[in-house]
């Protein structure tokens, strides 16, 4: 009886922990295997503890080059998609113009379309235009598919914004620029930030579209895929773990700052 009561009382916590485990376990495997010293070329079974990969993360040819390229593309794609997406979101919410309805639904097309179909069509388009496949074609493709996510995130925020806030700012001696910088932008910021983070994550680990539009250029996901055919260097796990750590640190810092702010104002 006591056991049943105990389970009943802690069921939510148990379910939560199990779900968390389910989510974190793959990341743990990546972390653990980054300290492995594999016998052959494949890093699939545990041998012994070793830190050589951590001491020399760029020890594999082309790995860090592809990582740098991926980060660069992700950064530019994020900036491009966030700026364009924010402008589109404001236009769709604030203004009534012809084809507004059509644009409103078309903007979601990249989200709904199977990625591989879109990738193939993009390649066809680029080839027909005679475009040189590489950095620019990847960037254009990434901005395109990130755009719909940014628009969705920013639009939700702008729609829930009270138009009276901007009127209040104008009433309190803020000109159009001041109103945008002091009131509109700070209030829309969480939506814009969410869209930007999403864009970065999507762009950084995109494989399918990149693979079609890259030509001979190799991004980090393509490098991982390519090396998986011939053997997986431990360095891949090191990069993976490092990315994971950076992301977790960002989230934790954000939470701490948020907590401190609410405590201060409470």
């Amino acid at each position, binding site marked *: 009886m006591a056991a049943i009561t105990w389970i009943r009382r802690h069921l939510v916590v148990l379910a939560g922990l199990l779900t968390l485990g389910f989510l974190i376990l793959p990341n743990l495997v990546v972390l653990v295997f980054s300290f492995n010293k594999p016998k052959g070329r494949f890093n699939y079974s545990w041998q012994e503890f070793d830190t050589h990969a951590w001491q020399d993360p760029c020890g594999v040819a082309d790995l860090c080059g592809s990582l740098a390229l991926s980060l660069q593309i992700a950064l530019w794609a994020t900036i491009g998609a966030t700026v364009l997406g924010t402008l589109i979101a404001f236009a769709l919410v604030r203004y009534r113009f012809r084809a507004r309805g059509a644009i409103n639904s078309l903007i979601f097309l990249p989200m709904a379309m199977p990625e591989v179909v879109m990738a193939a069509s993009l390649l066809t388009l680029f080839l027909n235009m005679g475009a040189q496949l590489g950095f620019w074609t990847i960037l254009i493709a990434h901005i395109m598919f990130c755009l719909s996510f940014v628009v969705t995130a920013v639009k939700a925020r702008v729609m829930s914004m009270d138009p009276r806030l901007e009127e209040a700012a104008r009433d309190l001696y803020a000109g159009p620029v001041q109103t945008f910088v*002091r009131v509109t932008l700070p209030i829309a910021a969480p939506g814009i930030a969410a869209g930007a983070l999403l864009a970065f994550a999507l762009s950084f680990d995109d494989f399918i579209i990149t693979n079609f539009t890259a030509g001979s250029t190799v991004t980090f996901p393509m490098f991982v895929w390519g090396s998986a055919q011939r053997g997986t260097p431990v360095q891949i796990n090191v990069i993976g773990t490092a990315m994971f750590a950076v992301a977790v640190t960002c989230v934790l810092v954000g939470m701490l700052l948020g907590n401190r702010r609410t405590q201060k104002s409470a």
Partner: protein
Amino acid sequence: MTDDTTRGDVRLSGIGKTYGSFTAVHPLDLTIPEGSFFALLGASGCGKTTTLRMIAGLEDPTTGTVHLGEQDVTGLPPYKRPVNTVFQSYALFPHLDIYENVAFGLRRRGVKSVKKQVGEMLDLVQLGDKAKHKPHQLSGGQQQRVAVARALINHPRVLLLDEPLGALDLKLRRQMQLELKRIQTEVGITFVHVTHDQEEAMTMADQVAVMNAGRVEQLGAPADLYENPQTTFVANFLGSSNLIEAEIAASSGGTLALKAGDGKLSLPAARCSAPTGTGDKVLVGIRPEKISLAHADDAREITEGRNRLTGRVAATSFIGVSTQYVIDSPVCEGLEVYVQNVERDGRLAPGAEVVLHWNPDHTFGLDAAQDIDAGVETVETDAAEGAAA
């Protein structure tokens, strides 16, 4: 025009606003005296908020001009007008704390040291200890006071209030009415207050403009509007009125003798806003609380010279301080009478024959060509108001 007394007045001349084929505000002229507490009163959709927004510059008038004193501000954007607004839902900036909300206007005008002024203003609205709070941490009444402080700190020529108490519960609303009145008296700035609550307008304002369907129906001091309505809308919207159809039988010495059915009533000619020729139709108005009730058996005790009508009690409801009677008279059905509960006459139950009598000086006369039910607040419109707020 350069008369000293009009130096800080708000003058609206021929100002109107149309949206496509819909006319929100018919061209109107209005002068709001400097330093007064002025109310624009009307049901929702009557154009009162549009008028306010045109003064603020948030809405461009289709026709007409807005003057602040001698300055024509019609073409100026809101951020260049010495006018500030307290918005209906307060519109406090959610990402700024109370201090920064109040300091917003000063900072935008490039004032360097705002600390002293913000502190004083927060003290004026009794929120000195909430400076570091965010708006969502405050109660409705507190948010409302922040909105007032944020506007007043700029020392505007005119403070515009758009249904500022609409979101508060009844008790808090009464408290804030007194509070706003106190602040207005203290700072001496012109307040223009938009409201649909006639009681709020009457308690707070020095002058009330009653608006209906994009027009100003009547303008005046609250007591004047109440005692002397010029239209059926004002008579019904401000409190309630009994309106009786009658015909002018004779006119002598400033008094009109009226015939309503087989009853005879008299009305001072000065209190009649309708044409006063013999045979003209008028609506005779009398406020429910001005009428006295006597049981038919006591009819002989009623003093001579009072207006009287006979009738039968149809319904009574006991309110506490007063009792409200509905009387059916042959002349007019459903007359309302409010009687203070000083000495209750137990005989005045439904079915009792009664005589209604009142001082003729309290009677007012309206043009019979108008809709007799204009401005009567029905349950439906009340519910719609509630939903809109």
